[in-house]
């Protein structure tokens, strides 16, 4: 068989498998056409956007001078940002001991395996699943969201951190060892400063990530702007749903730009060397 025929046969087999799988999953082309019609209805109901989300809520009575600070947009977004901020900082700090022990160049023996296994286990479950777990454990509200995002941040940042530590050159570590510096001194005075740029970059990335996920985990009752999104979806008030989606989109874009600007400035300075 020539190469050309082999390629044709592979293509036929791939398409055949596609049909089998589609049949197994009952993927109905009619539903897609219906879906298009439903989407059109949704967009018609969702537009124009309901700007009331920027006005003060009727209840409880707004005691602030600027009514915007009593609006759903501000309350939801500020709660999500605060949750993301707390979870990122706590997760970052709590991940450090795990990542130090997990770094292969710092020689913590069997503890390295234990630490890496724990970090992997945490990462197996997405933050949404952790949020469901904590909503059951501590009840509805921001605490469940903060706990879920903190735990996930430990798993996620822990891995990035130990990879950054492993990327530190062996030469300063070796010369510190030879001087007689203890392991904690090497970590504190050699490994942390040498990987500081990476750690900062990871921290900013995680803040963005948690901001996006902070909105999502609100869907299961873990507080933040996701709570309002879930509420209006259930009530079928789609113009408000769309307004909240737009607020989330703009805020994530904003944080993304700030974080990019900070990262650019930070790395440009260090790259001067």
């Amino acid at each position, binding site marked *: 068989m020539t190469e050309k025929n082999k390629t044709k046969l592979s293509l036929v087999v791939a398409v055949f498998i596609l049909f089998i799988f589609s049949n197994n999953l009952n993927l109905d082309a009619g539903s897609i056409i219906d879906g298009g019609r439903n989407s059109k209805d949704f967009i018609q109901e969702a537009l124009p956007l309901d700007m009331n989300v920027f006005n003060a809520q009727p209840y409880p009575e707004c005691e602030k001078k600027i009514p915007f600070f009593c609006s759903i947009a501000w309350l939801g977004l500020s709660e999500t940002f605060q949750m993301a901020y707390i979870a990122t900082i706590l997760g970052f700090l709590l991940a450090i001991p795990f990542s130090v022990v997990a770094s292969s160049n710092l020689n913590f023996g069997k503890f390295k395996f234990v630490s890496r296994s724990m970090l992997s286990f945490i990462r197996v479950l997405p933050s949404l699943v952790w949020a469901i777990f904590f909503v059951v454990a501590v009840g509805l509200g921001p605490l469940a969201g903060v706990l879920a995002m903190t735990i996930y941040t430990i798993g996620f940042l822990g891995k990035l951190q130990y990879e950054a530590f492993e990327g530190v050159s062996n*030469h*300063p570590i070796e010369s*510190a060892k030879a*001087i007689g510096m203890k392991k904690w001194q090497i970590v504190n*005075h050699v490994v942390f*400063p040498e990987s500081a740029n990476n750690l900062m970059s990871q921290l900013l990335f995680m803040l963005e990530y948690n901001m996006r996920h902070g909105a999502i985990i609100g869907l299961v009752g873990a507080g933040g702007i996701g709570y309002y999104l879930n509420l209006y979806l259930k009530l079928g008030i789609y113009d408000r749903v769309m307004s909240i989606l737009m607020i989330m989109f703009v805020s994530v874009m904003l944080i993304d730009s700030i974080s990019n600007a900070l990262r650019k400035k930070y790395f440009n300075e260090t790259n001067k*060397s």
Partner: protein
Amino acid sequence: MSETVFKETVLELKNLNVGYVSKKPILENINLEIEKGEIVAFVGPSGAGKTTLIKTIASIIPQISGEICILGECCADCLPSGNIGYIPQRLGLVNNKTVIENVIFGKFHKMNFLDVFLSNPNEKIIKEAMDILESLEMKEKANEQVKFLSGGERKRVAVARTLLQKPKIILADEFLGELDDETSISVGFKMFNYVKKNGSSIIFIDHNPARAMGVSDKIFKVCEKKVVKLDKKEQNVEVAR
């Protein structure tokens, strides 16, 4: 004969085998003694195992077998102590710290827990560090980050760190290489002067046999899995090659 009675051995290697894989030693059955105040050079071709030997003496790599005796204390699996100063080939400086912060690492083994944690040395240590930097013409750059320094300046920082440490044995891996002759002479002079003045010893690796012969009391050739002491005639032959 009477002279040898007063000599003090600071480093002794007994039947030492070194390498990264126990079944494949890079150097075998090394036996040598270094006396107090001696300047010793290791010469030999690239890849012969000079750096591996130095790292083993500095307790960075565990030896395969044999003993390393430092100041009379012999051990099969030694832990590093403040008695050894080590200048690796790539200097081992922390790029994101300042010159003075790097130099003060040399005194960490003599500082208390809190001062080390906060990187807060006392006035005496700072003065001592600044004096050493001044002698190496680096005082003006004390507060600059190491990553902004030139190759020669970085080398002087590494030397300053070792001089502040005041180790009994200095291990230097090609610390005179890559410097222009004038700077080599100046940095080398400071280092060797310190050794003679303080009764320390230095083992250095050099690819330039003429330079090594000019400054050292003993030369060892590292080649074909062996460490062989060269006498004066052989040293001349080596240079002639």
